[in-house]
């Protein structure tokens, strides 16, 4: 209880004092998770719209699979990517393990199914006639996708924000792939995990509050962008 109040106070202090360490990991968190959200959206939104637009055998199965991958534990993604990127793994030569780039890759993989699945379900509520109208206006496959994504932009933005939220809040992959190296790959969540394991609960909570603050800012900004 006390620690929560204490955490709020510390959070305010950290923000006001512009603690350079905290600023550094906050910026890194943002950089990594925004990048991952961007790349994942680039793949997931068109993919989701494609799945929505086209009737094909096994569509239902693909959707089920995507929804199953909602339950993909971050540690497992972290492990799999780790095994790929590790020195003895097939992509070891890239030297991406324990780098922010590696963390971006892992988070991107983590949230692609999420954003794709949510895109499909966001679009599922759209009238059949809307789809017909788009097609009959002579759209190409790509144009259809862009139009429908724009039409459902509120729900699509929600999907992207969820992806971002998941990325910036997750600790499993960034811990395994980034390694929580101070000054290099430490991000807010790994710092929170570290401080928790050290028993610095109020500091953890302070960092958590900062993380939520950052998410709120991203949220508001993206909402404003969406409304143009």
């Amino acid at each position, binding site marked *: 209880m006390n620690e929560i109040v204490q955490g709020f106070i510390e959070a305010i202090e950290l923000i006001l004092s512009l603690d350079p360490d905290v600023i550094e990991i906050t910026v890194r968190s943002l950089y990594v998770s925004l990048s991952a959200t961007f790349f994942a959206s680039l793949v997931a939104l068109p993919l989701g719209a494609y799945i929505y637009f086209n009737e094909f055998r096994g569509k239902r199965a693909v959707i089920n699979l995507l929804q199953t991958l909602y339950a993909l534990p971050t540690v497992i993604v972290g492990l799999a990517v780790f095994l790929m990127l590790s020195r003895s793994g097939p992509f070891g030569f890239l030297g991406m393990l324990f780098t922010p780039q590696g963390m971006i890759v892992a988070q991107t993989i983590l949230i692609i199914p999420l954003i794709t699945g949510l895109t499909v379900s966001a679009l599922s509520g759209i*009238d059949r*006639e*809307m789809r*017909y*109208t788009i*097609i*009959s*206006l*002579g*759209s*190409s496959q790509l*144009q259809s996708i862009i*139009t429908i994504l*724009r*039409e459902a*932009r509120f729900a699509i933005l929600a999907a992207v924000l969820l992806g971002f939220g998941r990325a910036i809040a997750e600790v499993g992959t960034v811990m395994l792939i980034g390694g929580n190296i101070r000054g290099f790959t430490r991000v807010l969540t790994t710092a929170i995990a570290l401080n928790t394991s050290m028993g610095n609960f109020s500091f953890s909570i302070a960092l958590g509050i900062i993380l939520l603050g950052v998410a709120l800012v991203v949220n508001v900004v993206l909402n404003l962008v969406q409304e143009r």
Partner: protein
Amino acid sequence: MIEAQNITKIYGEMEVLHGVDLSVGEGDIMGIIGPSGSGKSTFLRILDLIEPPDSGDLSLFDVNVVKERDRVVEVRRRMGMLFQKPIVFNTSVYENVALGLKYRHVGKNEIDRSVKELLEEVGLARYLHSNARNLSGGEQQRVSLARVLVTDPEILFLDEPTANLDPKSSKTIERLVTRMNRDRGMTVVMNTHDMLQGQRVAQRIGVMIGGDILQVGSPREIFYAPESTKIANFVGVDNIHDGKVLRREHQITAVEVAGTILYVGESPPEQSDRVKVIFRGEDVTLGIGKTAQTSARNILNGTIAEISDIAPFVHIKVDCGFPVSALVTVRSAEEMDLSEGKPAWVSIKASALHLIAESEESEG
């Protein structure tokens, strides 16, 4: 231009179209009328390549689109369709109408010009920047129409284009469509449940009932000489009577209906003597007192059995041995001071009577 042969469509376990044939020439305006649920919208969706037929052949612009699936987008871009349910996108009216042109990579200035011009035509210029979702039902329908017309399609499919519009707006739309048909040779296929619209706009009309196109012909043929009682019923023919062909002389056929002989200005159907004699209520002239001198060949005396207001007409049933329905304007009904039980005469020109072979009617 459009050649559809033996098109069938099955939804679930229900066959909605049973082998429909239709051919529409370049520059034609073809109307399709038919009862609710008869398959009109389904057929139009198939023609516009929105849904594939389950069987049958379809060629558009001489492209066999059933076989050449890869040319579908290309063909589709030469056509446009207004759907029955008007769909507007959650953006400005301008963006809505510009969409099809953007798909076709038309230049910004030209889009601007065309969009504004068309919105002017459909009377929505002042809503340019409104969100289309906030428009009224009729306004949304006009946005949808403008969105199609702006792409200047060679074939235009319209599914109930004026369902949500008042008569004045409907007229505007009708004029716009007929003008584009005349000026640009645009081919139009239009579903409509507004019979008058069908007569006003279409050069030819197809009647779809229960998943089949039963008759295709000029509005005149459809409304005055329907080929079956099913169609006659649907197009609002009030008088349908059993008759027996007695003889045929000088281009005139004599038919007996309930003991009365009617002279019909056309030859009887080949198959049988048993026929249906049909004629429209508005072709019946009604009079009181002494019989007027008209060129109508059939003059029958009777008594008024029933008067009902189906504004702006009065519907009068006269018992002449068999019931004859006549439509007269409210004014003339008043003038004649009609009342039930009053004697009256009806007169029907021989050319207004039409014969249908009875055998066709077994289902009906």
